[in-house]
């Protein structure tokens, strides 16, 4: 679904820029980047922890 329209706000929110986005699958967060024809998943992790593991 995201591949069809990665900018759909029902599916993902923009982070620091519109092409860097976050979506949630249940209690997990998926961080991805949209680069012309490619959608790259940068990280997947449980909510609350994905941003703390650095």
């Amino acid at each position: 679904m995201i591949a069809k329209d990665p900018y759909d706000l029902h599916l993902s929110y923009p982070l620091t820029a519109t092409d860097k986005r976050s979506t949630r699958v249940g209690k997990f967060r998926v961080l991805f980047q949209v680069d012309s024809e490619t959608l790259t998943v940068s990280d997947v992790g449980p909510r609350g922890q994905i941003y703390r593991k650095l």
Partner: protein
Amino acid sequence: MSTAAIAVLSNFERDRWNADVYGAMALASQLSALVKNRALTIRLAYHFWRLNSVLGDFFVDIRRAIKAGAPKDQAPATPERVLETAQDLRKLHRTLEHIYGRAKRAGLTNNSLTAGALNSVCNYNEDVLELAELLELSLKPEVVESIYDRGRAERERGDIFDLSEVE
């Protein structure tokens, strides 16, 4: 600050934001008391659907605000306002989580009158937490950037998998 966070905070007046968030919280607390007092299921169902509708409208406005973007002539929100807003959302999240747990223990997730609305409220509750995280992250863009930097470094090392390989 993140584009979404700027847009949300710029397009919501503080009073309207408080009315929406605290309105949802008041409804949820009312519902929690009703579940505790074992109110009639039909009454509970009505209140759950009402809460569901309030949360639904709130997220329609949020998406509209993000889509509209931040007005160029407006000063960005202060870090204090961002934190305060995120804390309000976390409070709403905890209230909704509490009410869902209580309703589940009362068997309302297995009741055809209430289960649909309850599942929907549970879904919106995840959206509430996601929005709180988004606002908090807007104050720490370096955290987001370092996740993407790490992803970029892995890609440059050839440490990548095509979707067909992981499915």
